[in-house]
């Protein structure tokens, strides 16, 4: 195997001798990674090698190192002998955090973005994409090299952080939590940056995206300094609270599931078009919703009474409504034809077709998928209200909650459904990409909110606009009034008489194309593929991945 060039010192000037000794140390890390085996992601291995030779990387490393030393000396000089008995540890930790935030919040994510964009610019992306690496591996490799960089920066700062511990005033757990937060934030930002990198295929979007990315990262950089600063100052009390740890755990659930979702989406962005790019994403959405509901249920059961049930139902309905609207706007923009490759793995049994069809790619199945999930939540909410209405507190009141569930459900069903119909109509004349489809949904919502506003404004003599049935196409105002001013403010009963049937009609109108999408049957493997499968895996008897497939097997025999 290649040995990394550790003889750089031989042909470098004396001023670079320190750099080269660092390079030797780093190349040790490289050698260690090498030994870690062939199993490592190829991109990770290559980019680690590149980073070790890159001036930008070693340069930033030194700047961080020097900044830490200067900060340390400054504090020691300012506080003088009091450094021995004062508790300067937490101040120092904040200073070092600010220094660490620079590479972790800005440099690492931006390099991740650049490394993907550079593959496109330097024509290596084509070469990479026709290797046998999967798109998931490509994203994972890029993330992995971001993690390696993070670890190197962390190790540069670690002696200083140990120093803060010696200064007293800060405990080890606080330091650990700060490092964990930084790590997670940097990893998450790198993934987002990679997602932006996969979207940037045209020069023009690339420029806009990189500007937005830099602005976003800069904002995160400052925000992270303030947040971590606040945390360090309050950590003494935080760390003793149960809710703090429970909150962290809940946050971790959200983080992990969202991470998986974005990772899958970024991989899908660069996958070839006949690949099934939707089903994995839908599965993660489903899991994410289950986690959310699980946490809400857990939080409720931890309390003695059910008086917060109403609030919990309201919050769940609100978040999941928004969630499924946003996801639905994307799913209903999918392409309505299934590739032959996707058709090979469609569910076949009756039960499978009933429950798993909605995980198949396609705007119709996507619509039903979102509506089904949302309906499940709404129905659960209604049942819970039915059983426990007597023990719930009065804010929000029971009828507010009921109407919120019904009207909110109707709005989501209507807007997603009408949007989907518009997209399929537009597709008869022009090519509508997924982004365009999503924008169409947004425009639909804006028009529905804005149009009655304009009409009312023009017809009212003094220019003030009151809520009326005219505004029922405005879900934002309607639901806002319902929550704040109660059900009478919007004539909720009349409204649900109109909206619920409207939602059902939209649902029915969509059923025609949904059933068209359901017509797809599993197609046979091409002979050549079956041949190779038999060669590669001599035992084609695959284990059933779900109970329905077993039934399917039995029925085949």
């Amino acid at each position, binding site marked *: *195997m*290649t040995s990394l*060039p550790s003889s750089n010192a031989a042909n470098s000037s004396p001023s670079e001798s320190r750099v080269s000794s660092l390079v030797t140390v780093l190349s040790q890390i490289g050698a260690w990674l090498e030994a870690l085996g*062939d*199993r490592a992601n*190829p*991109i990770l*291995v*290559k980019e680690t*090698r*590149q980073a070790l*030779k*890159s001036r930008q990387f070693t340069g930033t490393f030194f700047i961080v190192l020097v900044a830490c030393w200067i900060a340390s000396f400054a504090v020691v000089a300012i506080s003088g002998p009091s450094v021995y008995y004062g508790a300067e540890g937490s101040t120092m930790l904040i200073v070092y955090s600010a220094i660490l935030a620079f590479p972790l919040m800005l440099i690492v994510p931006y390099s991740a973005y650049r490394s993907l964009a550079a593959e496109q610019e*330097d*024509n*290596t*992306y*084509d*070469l*990479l*994409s*026709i*290797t*046998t*690496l*999967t798109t998931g591996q490509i994203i994972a490799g890029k993330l992995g090299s971001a993690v390696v960089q993070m670890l190197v920066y962390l190790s540069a700062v670690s002696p200083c952080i140990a120093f803060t511990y010696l200064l007293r005033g800060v405990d080890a757990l606080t330091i650990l939590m700060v490092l964990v937060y930084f790590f997670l934030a940097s990893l998450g930002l790198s993934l987002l940056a990679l997602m932006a990198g996969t979207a940037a295929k045209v020069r023009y979007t690339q420029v806009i995206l990189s500007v937005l990315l830099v602005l976003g990262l800069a904002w995160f950089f400052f925000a992270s300094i303030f947040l971590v600063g606040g945390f360090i100052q309050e950590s003494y009390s935080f760390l003793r609270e149960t809710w703090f740890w429970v909150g962290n755990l809940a946050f971790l659930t959200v983080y992990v599931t969202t991470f998986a979702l974005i990772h899958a989406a970024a991989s899908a962005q660069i996958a*070839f*078009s*006949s690949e099934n790019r939707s089903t994995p994403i839908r599965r993660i959405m489903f899991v994410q919703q289950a986690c959310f509901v699980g946490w809400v249920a857990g939080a409720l059961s931890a309390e003695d009474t059910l008086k917060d049930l109403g609030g919990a139902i309201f919050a769940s309905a609100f978040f999941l409504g928004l969630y499924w609207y946003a996801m639905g706007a994307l799913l209903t923009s999918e392409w309505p034809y299934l*590739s*032959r*490759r996707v058709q090979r793995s469609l569910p076949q049994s009756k039960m499978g077709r009933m429950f798993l069809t909605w995980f198949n790619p396609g705007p119709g199945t996507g619509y039903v998928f979102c509506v089904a999930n949302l309906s499940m939540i709404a129905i659960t909410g209604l049942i819970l209200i039915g059983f426990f209405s007597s023990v719930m507190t009065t804010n929000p009141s029971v009828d507010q909650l009921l109407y919120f569930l019904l009207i909110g459900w109707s709005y989501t069903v209507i807007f997603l459904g009408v949007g989907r119909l518009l997209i399929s109509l537009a597709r008869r004349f022009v090519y509508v990409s997924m982004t365009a489809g999503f924008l169409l949904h947004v425009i639909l919502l804006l028009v529905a909110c804005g149009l009655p506003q304009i009409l009312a404004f023009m017809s009212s003599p003094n220019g003030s606009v009151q809520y009326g049935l005219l505004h029922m196409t405005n879900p934002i105002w309607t639901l806002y009034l319902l929550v704040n001013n109660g059900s009478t403010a919007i004539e909720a009963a009349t409204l649900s008489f109109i909206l619920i049937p409207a939602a059902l009609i939209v649902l029915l109108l969509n059923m025609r194309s949904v059933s068209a999408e359901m017509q797809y049957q599993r197609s*046979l493997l*091409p*002979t*050549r*593929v079956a041949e*190779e499968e038999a060669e590669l895996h001599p035992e084609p008897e695959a284990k059933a991945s779900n109970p329905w497939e077993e039934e399917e097997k039995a029925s085949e025999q």
Partner: protein
Amino acid sequence: MSNANGFHPGERRPLIELRRLFRYFGETRAVEDMSFKVYAGEVFGYIGPNGAGKTTSMRILATLDEPTAGDAFVDGFSVIDDPDRVRRRLGFMPDYFGTYQNVNVREYLDFFARAYGMRGSERRRAVGSVMEFTMLNKLAEKPIDGLSKGMKQRLCLGRTMIHDPAVLILDEPAAGLDPRARIELREMIAQLAQQGKAVLISSHILTELAEICDKVGIIETGQLLAVGTVDEISAKSQAKSQVRLRTLDDSRPLRAWLSQQNDITNLTAEAELMTFNHDGGQKEQALLLRKIVEAGFEVVEFASKTKSLEDVFLHVTEGRIQ
């Protein structure tokens, strides 16, 4: 019985097959209804003027682009439905070089070997043998940014064959190579074909293709105008050989005589020298010469030149540009 891929059991499977392939870019018809097959051990030459659709069809085969209609198969796998399987057995050398910063020749090859899932000693052996094959051994530690055009071209070819693919698609591999490197490249390709690989190669330098290709396809504006061996195409394109004739003294009587013959066209003359196109093979030419001599003309030179690939190319294509 023919199966889903359209092959009969027992029939030799082509390693490359284009089946009614179309690729439009808006109004531009880059590839229009192209079909051909290339079998193991064959070198297929792709000839066509600029913008003919060579790169486009090669990119589709390499799973980098998708056809508007039709399909292409590599070792029986569709490039649309099973690009993952196609990629395992295909090496594509584009007409550009993809470069990474701070990477040397060995690391570059090592990276792609890893990316094709090769591990441990297998990978080391592959990198070693590719460097030997492309004669890049001495440059192993050289950063790839600093390589010359020809060296890059070799490295590119090396990368293409790192995973020992059964199918090689080479888009203008000889561009920018010096004459010696060209001969070497030609030998390399011949060697690869001997190993049983199917090679699809495009080039503008026709003499080069004529020597190494078992078959050539001439394309223009996305359409395949002719496929076959160089001889077959020459024959099909009603190739006339060009004859040069020199007489001892004044050629005018002979000119008058020749213009009476019906298999002679394009007669031009300059003092004693005449050139004309003659339909028919060598036998007919020998007959013609005897007739001329028997008619009493004094011939000092009679040379006939069969058409080169270049002539065929110029004859078949029309220089259309879209």
